[in-house]
Each structure stands twice: as structure tokens, then as C-alpha cells.
């Protein structure tokens, strides 16, 4: 096995047993990135010097102490909407093209404390709004399994980096499926934690009641390691929750009940994807898990509810980009177009934001505007409660819910780009989880041809342990 193929736990063993140094490990990744990034375009920014000096520090630590934290010396990639102090953070947007982060996000602070080696920042749809990474202002990322196809999105750069062995693990963010769907398209593991389990401080805000940071990894065990390192209450994010950590808890397979919602297997799903998912569920049955059909009757409303709530929150969050405090400003243009304050706003935002972001700001502003607020936003927030009630009822009968991550495998570049609505439909299985704040895992469970398919394992709030356990037993069974 070459160095870039290693998992976290295997790389950690290699480091403490001195099979290789942290410097060698980091160099192996930097070389591979230089060779591969041109065609895949997973990374927007590389921070080579800081990665190398961090790796040297860890090597010194190993020779002086022998013992190091599990993430020490392990190279990672960070989605470019998570702040790393002193490093550019573009959020995939022209409006932040020259923005340098003045501080570390809490998750970054935690990983730095453990001694992690940040290799660089990965590509994403602008402000994480998209499902293919084609909406990045800096060009699309390609799927390492088939370069003519998208890696999914919005954390497409992070997912592609893991699939192509350009980092041991990566951080992404998930507002409507942005970790799970690219994980599924690229064939890697992705975890969207419970809302509040991981601090959002230092994450460029998209929709604050939906956003969560989480890991993309090669194995479920790695996802657990990263999740444990970055989760916890943070005084800088008042929605973060210190959930009781269930250490080494053993769930008995025989006592586990899995719910499969019938509403997720209707028209619209690719029959080949359905076959792979059904086969995976069958394997769990062989392992002794009880499978039960359940109903989530409000499923069909989740997508329209999401596309009211998320743009509404986005339109408020993105009001901060005004061409005055930071980011792209029309006043810096040489053309003397801006004579008053209103022009500065209109032109900085009109020129700085890309098409999809403008569309969502418009949609959100409309849904929140006088005369429409009750018909759209308020109604959506109420139907959101009905979707929550569906899941609460289901979780009285079953421990976890299994669904596909996406109705289809990775699609071709350009296939959906001109049709916003069909792009939105690719999130149909992942958004309920964000609307309610549940934890969910995207687990590679098979292929259609060369293209990976992900199984989604949804748990009760703060039951990450249970969904990770179920993911791990599948990996072992394979």
C-alpha cells in the first residue's frame, strides 16, 4: 500500500512505529496532488510550506515523546468555506477571491491542537450552493472515478480529494446533503453530524439552522475518529451542544431495527441504484438486523420546504457582503461607476456573486418579503414540523432509517447546469435530515458500472455512535 492510500489509524500506526516520518507522509501527498490536481481540480489552494513545517514538528514530537494524538501528522484537506487563519478562504466565490481568514474556525483550532497537517483548501459550489461543484467561480472539480462526471456537491473538492488519495481525510459542510451526496458520488464515507454536535464558528454561513461541519473519510472508523476530535460544545457557537459521549458502547445487531421508508423508493430513482441499495439492506438482514417498512408521509414536501427555508436564511446571511467591510468591492474598480452608497451595494453584489447565489438570494428575499412571508416562509416552517413528526414517529418503532443517498449515480458535467430545478431534485433524499437536524452517514455500498452508490443511514439526534457502528459492521461483512 502506498502512503497516500493509508487510513488515519493505519497512518498513525506507521508514524509511531517509525515505518515512515510525518514529513515523508506529507511529501507523498504533496507530490501526488501536484501530479493529479490538474485533471481533478480538488484543491483551490495548497499551503505547502506550513504543511511541511507542521510535519517536521510532529516528527520532533515523535522522537522526543514517542506518543502523539491520533490526528498528529495526518494530512487533511479543508473545504474552502472553513476558515484557516492566514490562508485564503474563497467559499468558491469571486466576492471572497482575495479574502484571507483572520482567525481559525473552531474545528480547525481543534485539529491544529491535535497536530493535524493541513494540506490545502478544497473546491466547492459557490457558498456551498449546489450539488455538483460546477458552480464554483474557479471551475469544476471532476469525479476521480470518471473524469467526465461531477463529484457531487457542494463538498465535491473534499470528496474527490479522498477518492483520489490526495488527503487522508477531509472536512466538508452539509446544508442539504453537501457532505453525503459527494461522498456517495465519489465512493467515500461522509458523516453529517447532528445539528449542534460540531461548532459552526468559522464556517462561512449559508443557512444557519441547517449547516453542519463533518468528515469525509476512507473508512467509517476514520469518520468516527475525526468526529470525536471536532465535536463538542463551543462557547463561540451558541447552538452547539455538549452531547454525552457514549464510549465503546456495544449495540447488539440482533436487537437493532432498521426502518426503510416506502416513500423513498418511488418514481424518480434509477432502478440500478435501487437494486444496489436493496442488496445492501439484504446484507444487513443476513447479519441478523430486523428490517421493517415504514412511512414518512410528508417526504414529498421536504424539497420545496428546503428551497424556501435555505434561500431565506442565505439571503439574510449573505447581506453581510456589502463591498465595504471585506471581499470584492465595486469601489476598487477603476471605472468610476459608483458615485453613492447604493451603487456600491448593487454593483459589488451584482458582480461579486455568481448566478446560482443570486438566484437563491432572490428566492429568499421574495419568500421573506412583505405579503409573501406567511405564504412561503411561515408555511414552510410549519410543514417542517410535520416532517419532524414523521421521523419522531418512525424512531419510536425503529432505531435507524436506511435510504439511498441520491436517486442516481454521478451525472455528466454540464448535464444539469442549465436547469436549476433538476439540480435541486438531486438533493431529494438528503434534505429531510438537515431540516430536522438528524445525524446521517453516507456509506459506499456498491456500484453501478464504475460508479459508486451510497447508502444513507439516518439516526436519532446525537446517536452518531449507532450509525457509525452500523456502517462499520457493513465494512467488516464486505
Amino acid at each position, binding site marked *: 500500500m502506498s502512503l497516500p492510500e493509508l487510513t488515519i489509524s493505519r497512518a498513525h500506526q506507521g508514524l509511531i512505529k517509525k515505518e515512515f516520518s510525518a514529513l515523508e507522509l506529507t511529501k507523498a501527498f504533496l507530490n501526488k496532488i501536484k501530479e493529479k490536481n490538474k485533471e481533478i481540480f480538488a484543491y483551490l489552494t495548497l499551503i505547502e510550506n506550513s504543511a511541511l513545517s507542521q510535519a517536521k514538528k510532529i516528527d520532533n514530537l515523535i522522537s522526543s515523546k514517542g506518543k502523539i494524538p491520533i490526528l498528529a501528522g495526518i494530512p487533511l484537506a479543508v473545504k474552502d468555506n472553513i476558515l484557516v487563519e492566514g490562508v485564503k478562504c474563497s467559499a468558491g466565490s469571486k466576492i471572497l477571491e482575495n*479574502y*484571507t481568514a*483572520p*482567525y481559525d474556525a473552531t474545528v480547525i483550532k481543534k485539529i491544529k491542537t491535535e497536530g493535524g497537517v493541513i494540506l490545502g483548501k478544497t473546491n466547492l459550489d459557490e457558498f456551498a450552493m449546489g450539488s455538483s461543484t460546477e458552480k464554483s467561480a474557479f471551475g469544476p472539480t471532476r469525479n476521480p472515478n470518471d473524469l467526465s462526471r461531477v463529484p457531487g456537491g457542494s463538498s465535491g473538492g473534499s470528496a474527490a480529494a479522498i477518492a483520489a488519495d490526495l488527503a487522508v481525510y477531509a472536512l466538508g459542510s452539509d446544508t442539504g446533503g453537501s457532505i453525503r451526496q459527494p461522498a456517495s458520488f465519489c465512493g467515500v464515507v461522509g458523516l453529517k453530524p447532528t445539528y*449542534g454536535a460540531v461548532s459552526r464558528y468559522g464556517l462561512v454561513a449559508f443557512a444557519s*439552522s441547517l449547516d453542519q461541519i463533518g468528515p469525509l473519510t476512507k473508512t467509517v472508523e476514520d469518520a468516527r475518529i475525526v468526529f470525536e476530535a471536532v465535536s463538542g460544545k463551543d462557547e*463561540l457557537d*451558541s*447552538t452547539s*451542544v455538549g452531547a454525552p459521549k457514549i464510549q465503546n458502547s456495544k449495540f447488539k445487531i440482533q436487537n437493532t431495527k432498521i426502518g426503510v421508508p416506502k416513500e423513498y423508493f418511488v418514481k424518480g430513482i434509477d432502478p440500478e441504484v435501487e437494486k444496489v441499495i436493496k442488496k445492501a439492506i439484504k446484507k444487513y438482514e443476513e447479519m441478523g438486523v430486523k428490517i421493517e417498512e415504514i412511512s414518512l408521509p*410528508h417526504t*414529498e*414536501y421536504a424539497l*420545496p*420546504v428546503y*428551497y*424556501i427555508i435555505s434561500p431565506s436564511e442565505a*439571503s439574510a446571511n449573505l*447581506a453581510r457582503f*456589502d463591498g*465595504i467591510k*471585506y*471581499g470584492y*468591492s465595486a*469601489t*476598487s474598480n477603476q471605472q468610476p461607476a*459608483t*458615485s*453613492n*452608497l447604493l*451603487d*456600491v*451595494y*448593487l*454593483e459589488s*453584489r*451584482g*458582480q461579486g456573486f455568481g448566478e446560482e447565489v*443570486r*438566484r437563491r438570494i*432572490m*428566492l429568499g*428575499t*421574495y419568500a421573506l418579503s412583505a405579503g409573501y412571508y406567511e405564504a*412561503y416562509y*411561515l*408555511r*414552510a*416552517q*410549519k*410543514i*417542517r*414540523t*410535520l416532517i*419532524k413528526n414523521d421521523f419522531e414517529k418512525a424512531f419510536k418503532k425503529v432505531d435507524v432509517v436506511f435510504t439511498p443517498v441520491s436517486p442516481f449515480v454521478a451525472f455528466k458535467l454540464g448535464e444539469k447546469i442549465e436547469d*436549476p*430545478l433538476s439540480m*435541486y431534485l438531486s438533493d431529494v433524499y438528503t434534505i429531510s435530515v438537515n431540516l430536522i*437536524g438528524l445525524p446521517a452517514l453516507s456509506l459506499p455500498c456498491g456500484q453501478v458500472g464504475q460508479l459508486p452508490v451510497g447508502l444513507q443511514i439516518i439516526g436519532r*439526534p446525537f446517536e452518531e455512535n449507532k450509525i457509525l457502528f452500523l456502517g462499520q459492521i457493513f465494512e467488516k461483512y464486505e
Partner: protein
Amino acid sequence: MISNQEVKHIAKLARLGLTEKEIKKMEKELSLILDYMEKLKKVDIKEVEVYSHSWLKENIIREDEVNEKLKMKNEKLLGLAPKIKNGYLKVKSILK
């Protein structure tokens, strides 16, 4: 459906400078998306409360004090602004 006038009004509220061509395209696309939202009208929401995360029931408040740990140099943040003057952000005139 959304009219051309409405799109212009919303763009102004959102402080987005759009060209005529962009407004036309937006009109078409927003109309399609809003038509898709129509299906929400058939849901009965009479007795339903608005959503909240069930595990975030309390307001989290803190004293209005400067957190020394987080204090950042002013210059560091002002350095990100396109125009500053005497340690303040500089803006264009509001009134003509």
C-alpha cells in the same frame, strides 16, 4: 408566477444590481421554481406550530463583555476592508 416588475423590486430589496437580460432570465427561472412550491399549499397546517430543534429549547445568552481571548487586532480586520480612513471604514455618500 412572478412579474418583471416584482423581480426588479426584489432585486432592489436584495441589493443586487442585475442587467435587463439577467432580470428576464431570473423572471423565467423564479417562476418555474415558485410553481414547484405550489404543492405546499395543499398541506393542512392549521394546528401546526413552527419548527424548532427539539434539543435547543433555551436561549443561550452571555454578558455583554469583551472576550479577551478572542480580541483581535483592529488593523487585522480593517486590513480586509477596501477603503479605510483614520481607522474607520470609508463609505460613499448616502445623500446626494
